[in-house]
């Protein structure tokens, strides 16, 4: 990054720095009591503590111990637990959702069967599934993965279905005219043509996955950022709770940015 582009980025996010400064000022000037809103610096301080609290058996090699301690810290272990659940749940829903959505668009029989199921599942508020999955699958990783999978599946199915349904028939004709066989049309034409819809469906699912991740971890879990928020909040550790909220915020932000960058790269062929 050049100096110039760094300045551009900093300038773009200037409103956030102003907000943080206002937060700090409000605490300094005692506008709000610490018990309601700990100061920004306290939150950052607590966050750094969480980053350095990894307990390990010392080996004596400084660098190696530092690395191991980092990975054993509160922030990193809980972030890793959350990310693992989120990525597996979302990943599975992408694989099944894209396949099912495209298959439904292509095969009338599948559409007849699954369309009513999708339609009835669509309006269910997905957090309502959390208690059910916890009863079925317990407090570990699996119940959260299942909730995220179920909640992300429907929007992905719908976007893949709409994308595949909306493929310009002239593109399909064009491929068949040049000798593409029926069996290869899906892969050669339908999938690439519905990619813009699929990718924006996945972006929506990414946002949903964060909501479900945190809420399911808050409801019942022994690790993860949602658990941390709930646990620290319950025990009145507000600076720590805010530090956990801060972590999930940053995680969500960078996940969306990274996804957007990848999506733009894949869809480079689209008109501006």
């Amino acid at each position, binding site marked *: 990054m050049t100096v110039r582009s760094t300045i551009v980025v900093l300038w773009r996010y200037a409103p956030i720095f102003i907000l943080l400064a206002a937060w700090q000022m409000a605490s300094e000037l005692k506008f709000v009591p610490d018990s309601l809103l700990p100061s920004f610096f306290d939150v950052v301080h607590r966050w750094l503590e969480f980053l350095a609290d990894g307990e390990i058996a010392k080996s004596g090699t400084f660098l190696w111990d530092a690395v191991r301690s980092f990975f054993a810290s509160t922030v990193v272990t809980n972030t890793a637990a959350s990310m693992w659940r989120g990525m597996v749940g979302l990943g599975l829903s992408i694989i099944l959702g894209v396949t099912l959505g495209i298959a439904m668009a292509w095969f009338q029989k599948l559409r007849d069967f699954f369309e009513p199921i999708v339609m009835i599942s669509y309006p269910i508020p997905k957090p309502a599934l959390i208690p059910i999955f916890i009863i079925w699958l317990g407090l570990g990783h699996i119940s959260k993965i299942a909730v995220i999978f179920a909640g992300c599946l429907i929007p992905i199915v719908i976007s893949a279905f709409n994308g595949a349904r909306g493929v310009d028939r*002239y593109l399909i*004709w*064009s491929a068949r*005219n040049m*000798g593409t066989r029926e069996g290869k049309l899906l892969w050669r034409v339908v999938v*690439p*043509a519905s990619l813009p819809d699929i990718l924006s469906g996945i972006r929506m699912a990414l946002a949903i996955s964060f909501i479900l991740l945190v809420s399911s971890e808050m409801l019942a879990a022994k690790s993860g950022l949602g658990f941390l928020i709930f646990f620290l909040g319950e025990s009145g550790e507000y600076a720590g709770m805010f530090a956990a909220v801060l972590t999930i915020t940053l995680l969500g932000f960078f996940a969306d940015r990274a996804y957007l960058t990848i999506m733009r790269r894949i869809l480079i062929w689209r008109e501006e």
Partner: protein
Amino acid sequence: MADIVARNVRKIYNPDKRYPVLAIDEVSLEVRENEFVAIVGPSGCGKSTLLYMVAGFLDLTAGEIKVNGKPVEAPGPDRGIVFQHFALFPWKTVLRNVTYGLEEQKIPKAEREKIARKHIDMVKLTGFEHHYPSQLSGGMKQRVAIARTLAFDPEVLLMDEPFGALDAQTRGVMQEELLSIWSKRKKTVLFVTHDVREAVYLADRVVIMTARPGRIKEIVDTKFAGYKSTEEVLESAAFAQKTHQIWKSVREEVDKAGPLDG
């Protein structure tokens, strides 16, 4: 090498729904091997529909179409089409669009790139091989569509207003190229156009269709023998007379179609 025979072809769109459209009725036409036939007629008279049926995209409501003696059942690369609205793959570059048909025919990579580049050069798009269709103008897309279809060398060429988006000068160049390919590689061509001069100049025969439902109104012979050059043909009285005759005939149909509703 192939001929096209259409007998009593009829096409009704949406026959079971509330607003069926009789697009084509009682169309019988024979295009001989290596013949160049142009179709003109008012907008909405069923020219594209007829081409799509020859290409095998649409079922006929009645009648039959044979290509090379065999009834048309499915699309295939023996009948290459240039679509009115190009239908390029937007996710592929110009080069990949043009190599697509060759790839489907299992032509080795090096060779298909060579063939593709030759055709891209022919339509004057060298330098744009790695552009995506969204980065091209309408006329450039149309030229890619032409290159793409010519590249896989179909026996029958079905062209739906292939020069419609081009300026007069580029159109002239493309017409020359098409005629030279047609005479070198011997193809049967069915060519839809709104430009009567173009039809008379390019085709051996011009088919005039009636307003919807499209029927064949008349077929005019437009072969000009005994001229030394293209210019001489274009400036001849016979050419002007044919053009005028066909133009008037189409105009009658446009007037019949009533208000310009397309």
